[in-house]
């Protein structure tokens, strides 16, 4: 269901922001043992799944133990990447004082260095969400995922590029903050680029050694089996995270912004952009955990440092707020959202007709001439 959002005046956006602030405060004040127990349970599950997976791969023989082992390993990698890594690094558990959950020190099990991620994701992406030219997550500087992006001939290859990116997603994420696009456009000097690559090459080197050197070596005769299992588990994690993450900002119904629209932005207007720039995926409890609660991309973008397991209980209140303020709440099934993204990647590979700009929810000029807000029932 994609209705367009009503543009809000300054006052309306401020009121909207204040209500969201109040919701955030209420949940932040309620955080406690239950949240710590949840994340530790997920961490425990990931460890147990990894141990089971490795044991099956290392000492098992035959295809069944290979399949089960690889699946268990993939599950642990997905949990570690999504529910644990992404959320811990956002600072969602900094309030606990537990050094194992400290956002600035956490390293996750893929080729992207934690510091690079904290910079490009926590700061850049969450501050400049969906602002064309500033949010480098839009198409990951590679794909044309919104009609507002200018078409270039290279985009003709993007269905293939997207498929490759999906299979090797951890490498795309890992190299994202190297800012190769800026090197090619001249905005970044080769010297700066070289300095940037050091932490990435170190992390990637250790990851390759771990997955294709160290663990296979431990398995002696089973080394090839273990290496292949690790490769497939990494690939499965890549595909899953690619699919979930691409559903976050690229399905039909999500708004892109131009820099002039967002140059001066109040806190309320920041909330409005975060809301309109994100999309949710419907699903059950286990689905939410497997996506690291990025199925609640909207709530995540409104409250990035609130523990993600709280998003499902915050969602009904956010939806109610959106209804009252005439804002569209973009959500749908996994199949629908992913299908919408796939269609876009295919359609936008071709040069389209003139840019179709969705109604701008932030522009005050548009807002002054429009409808008052729907009153709460």
């Amino acid at each position: 269901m994609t209705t367009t959002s009503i543009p809000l005046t300054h006052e309306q956006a401020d009121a909207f922001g204040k209500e969201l602030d109040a919701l955030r405060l209420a949940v932040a004040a309620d955080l406690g043992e239950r949240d710590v127990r949840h994340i530790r349970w997920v961490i425990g599950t990931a460890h147990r799944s990894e141990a089971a997976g490795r044991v099956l791969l290392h000492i098992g023989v035959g295809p069944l133990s290979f399949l089960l082992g690889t699946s268990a390993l993939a599950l642990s990698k997905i949990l570690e990447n999504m529910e644990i890594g992404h959320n811990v690094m956002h600072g969602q558990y900094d309030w606990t004082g537990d050094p194992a959950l400290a956002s600035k020190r956490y390293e996750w099990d893929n080729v992207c260095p934690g510091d690079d991620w904290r910079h490009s994701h926590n700061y850049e992406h969450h501050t400049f969400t969906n602002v064309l030219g500033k949010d480098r997550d839009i198409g990951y500087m590679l794909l044309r995922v919104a009609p507002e992006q200018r078409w270039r001939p290279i985009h003709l290859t993007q269905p293939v590029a997207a498929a490759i990116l999906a299979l090797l997603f951890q490498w795309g994420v890992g190299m994202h903050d190297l800012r190769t696009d800026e090197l090619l456009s001249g905005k970044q000097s080769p010297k700066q680029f070289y300095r940037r690559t050091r932490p990435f090459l170190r992390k990637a080197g250790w990851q390759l050694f771990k997955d294709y050197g160290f663990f296979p070596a431990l398995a002696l005769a089973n080394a090839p089996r273990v290496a292949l299992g690790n490769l497939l588990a990494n690939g499965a994690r890549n595909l899953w995270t690619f699919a979930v993450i691409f559903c976050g900002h690229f399905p039909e119904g999500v708004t892109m912004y131009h820099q002039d629209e967002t140059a001066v932005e109040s806190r309320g207007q920041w909330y409005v952009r975060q809301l309109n720039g994100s999309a949710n995926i419907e699903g059950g409890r286990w689905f939410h955990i497997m996506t690291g609660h990025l199925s609640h991309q909207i709530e995540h973008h409104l409250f990035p440092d609130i523990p993600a397991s709280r998003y499902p209980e915050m969602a009904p209140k956010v939806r109610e707020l959106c209804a009252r303020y005439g804002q569209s709440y973009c959500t749908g099934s996994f199949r629908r959202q992913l299908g919408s993204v796939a269609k876009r990647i295919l359609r936008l590979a071709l040069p389209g007709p003139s840019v179709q700009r969705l109604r701008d929810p932030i522009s005050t000029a548009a807002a002054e001439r429009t409808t008052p807000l729907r009153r709460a029932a």
Partner: protein
Amino acid sequence: MTSQPLISRAWARARDTVSRRLFLDRQAAFWLNELDPLLSLTGVRARVVDVIDETPDTKSFVLHPNTAWRRHRAGQHTVIEVEIDGVRMRRCYSIASAPGHWPIAITVKRVPGGQVSSWLHDRVRPGQVVGLDQPAGDFVLPLRRPGKLLLLSGGSGITPVMSILRDLAARAALEDVVFVHHARSQAEVIFGAELRQLADRHAGLRLVVRTDDDPSGPPGFDESRLAKQVPDFGERSTYLCGPAPMMKRAEALWKSVGATQRLTQERFVAPVLATPLTGAGKDVRVTLLRSGRTVVAGGEGSLLDQLERAGERPANGCRMGICRTCTCRKTAGTVQNLITGEVSSAADEDIQLCISAPQSDLQLEL
């Protein structure tokens, strides 16, 4: 670390790097914890073995530390770490047991409204595991025991001097020791029975217990009474621990007789910082522990703005409290959270510079 040869230090560093890069450190920590929460490769943990009621508002906690624990010296303290409703909290307590005694014990007085002391009193049971720091502190006897000793305490300040006393008793070295203690009433004398037993058994120990409800003189610490009861106090090596007002008066008394160098003090409360300011904009001194600089901050805006105006360049990102890039540890001082309005004076807490405003002089790990 400097005592270790170069080779073994390099080996330790390499081992740490490999275990970190292969995530083996995380695995080890998890599985050890699954096996037994007491086990840890990285720190001291202790199992609560017994909880003893000393007085109506004081309990002793007998703790069995893991093998990482280094034996303490009498009078030292440790830091206990507990998790209360998901949040890890740390508090400093003197180790009340003698070094030769195993397991160790700390004695905790319930502080009205105190989070950790209340939790320890109300929720801790034998079998639970807590975190500890290695013992530390200079409130210890020198290796050659001084000839004349005075152990002077008030209220819960008895804990470190009790450790010293128990150690001397265990070593049969209780000659010419005067133990002066102040409490509100007989019932509130912590270790009262044990003190009387020690005095009975050891002729060299002289025990003076003064309670506030004793009508024969003014309540609390009194200079002339002490001078009368212990005329040679200025000649004794004195170990003092008690409430701040008592310690202040005792310190002045020792200074007045020129005996300051024989007085050793143990403080439970950090010296009071500059009185908290109300209202924004007043200048505060911010000590940056890592760079060694002290800057004067003040004026409009968040702590981040103020530090930048003072010429500092702390790491920052969104400048609105979301991305956490500016998170830094405040080791002392009071700040106000500009978003929630909450004021906090906690020692050792992480704050976000872009949404905090200083309310007093600060110490930051920057």
